[in-house]
């Protein structure tokens, strides 16, 4: 019995099968990175767990509760969504609210915390992402990296059992990627359970406790960073790593 169990997750768009029966276990405090070629359903996997997509089949056990991912009841959907939080590629901060209000929004509206308590929690998280000096700035006044740090604070303030991160650095200018990766690493080190889709392979290597290689809607290989990058057994995985230039044996002759 794992902390989180995903069973038989299936999702298709029209005739295109994106997720073809995903089974995945995640232990408490684990940081699981999902890698794979584009279009293999990495993002769809994350979005299905938060019901931003509606899967055709699948169950999701988290926090001692088992949820049907196919549920149509909005109360069940909301209960499930409160177990997880999402960090988006495009940050998706509320543009009409400043930094502090963005982080407090879920606490006051969804968790119904009193203002003071919500404010304290928000400030605690904003301190961790080092955004205390920008509390009254609106998203449009912030750089992409700062916005993403606020988005991470907003997600963590809700105390999710699983933090979903969908390519959190892909929309950032190269010089801003570092500050967000540092923030994510810190969140991981503090024991937050994370499921992360990213193309930052060096980061994955150093932060992830486990890597899942997804191709054509199936988990083709999984293991520790060392198993995946240094000693890949699977042929498809080897090809993928070759392509993204991560296989150590690769040598270029120029």
């Amino acid at each position: 019995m794992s902390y989180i169990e995903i069973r038989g997750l299936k999702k298709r768009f029209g005739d295109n099968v994106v997720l073809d029966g995903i089974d995945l276990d995640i232990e408490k405090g684990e940081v699981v990175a999902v890698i794979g070629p584009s279009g293999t359903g990495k993002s769809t996997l994350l979005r299905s767990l938060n019901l931003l997509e509606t899967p055709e089949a699948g169950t999701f056990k988290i926090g001692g509760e088992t949820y049907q991912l196919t549920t149509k009841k909005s109360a069940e959907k909301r209960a499930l969504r409160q177990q997880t939080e999402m960090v988006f590629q495009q940050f998706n901060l509320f543009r009409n609210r400043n930094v502090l209000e963005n982080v407090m929004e879920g606490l006051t509206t969804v968790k119904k915390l009193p203002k003071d308590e919500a404010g304290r929690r928000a400030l605690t998280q904003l301190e961790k992402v080092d955004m205390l000096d920008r509390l009254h700035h609106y998203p449009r006044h912030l750089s992409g990296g700062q916005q993403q740090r606020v988005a991470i604070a907003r997600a963590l303030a809700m105390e999710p059992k699983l933090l979903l991160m969908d390519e959190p650095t892909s929309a950032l200018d190269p010089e801003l990627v570092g500050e967000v990766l540092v923030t994510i690493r810190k969140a991981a080190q503090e024991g937050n359970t994370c499921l992360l889709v990213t193309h930052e392979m060096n980061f994955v290597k150093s932060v992830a406790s486990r890597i899942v290689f997804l191709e054509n809607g199936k988990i083709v290989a999984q293991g520790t960073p060392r198993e995946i990058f240094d000693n890949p057994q699977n042929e498809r995985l080897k090809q993928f790593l070759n392509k993204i230039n991560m296989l150590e044996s690769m040598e270029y002759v120029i």
Partner: protein
Amino acid sequence: MGVLFDWKLVFSQIPDILRYLPTTVELTLVATFIGYAIGLLLALVKIHRVPVLRQLAAFFISIIRGTPILVQLYITYYGIPLTLKYINLIHGTNYNINSIPPVIFAIIALGLNQSAFDSEIIRAAIQSVDNGQLEAARALGMTGGQVLRRVILPQAVTVALPSLGNSLIGLIKGTSLAFTVAVIDMTAQGRILAGRNFRYFEAYCSLAIIYWVITIALEKLFKYLEKRFSVPEEAPAAEKKVAGLIRAFRASRNAAPRDGLKLPEPEENV
């Protein structure tokens, strides 16, 4: 008849006309409210593509936009009593047609007319809020109503304000047609005054001045609201509302060493 154009009368009768300003304001406010409420419903029906209702909404909007407001006023004015008569005939009831104050007809006609035009403004404004924010709100666990109230509407209002302002100005001027269905508003009062002394030109000049001033005031009001609701250009300084909270938090933190981000931290290569 002394002078050709009695310009003093133009100004001296303004207070007399303004006695009916409350009627004009009442017509405008209630019609606006109806317009926003039904307009929002129509917009939501269109956005969510509700079957049947969507076709009905499109049909309704098409009719309202395709006919003059004057004709719509007459249709309500004659249509509602006719409908009541019919109901009385069929069900043997005894609704009194003459007890309906004429202002009701004007309010219904103007309100429905507004709703058709406002629904398009509201729909465009709602759809201007990017989908990512809606996903973020849903991911936080908000209900559909909360997403609408907390995320969509506050941002849609900013987008819609200039167009809603225009629409409201159009409505204020549209209320001047209410005299055709026996409502005594400012325009009707102007005509009544003119009927006594045959100074029609002066009466309409007075009305023009009044409507113009009201419109200018509304334009200013909407400019102010627009500024008020939109995100400030510059990052604002600290807000007083939460100053105490932040001070308390900082004080509690001064004791413990601060554990912020250390930047830049080089990416390690394994």
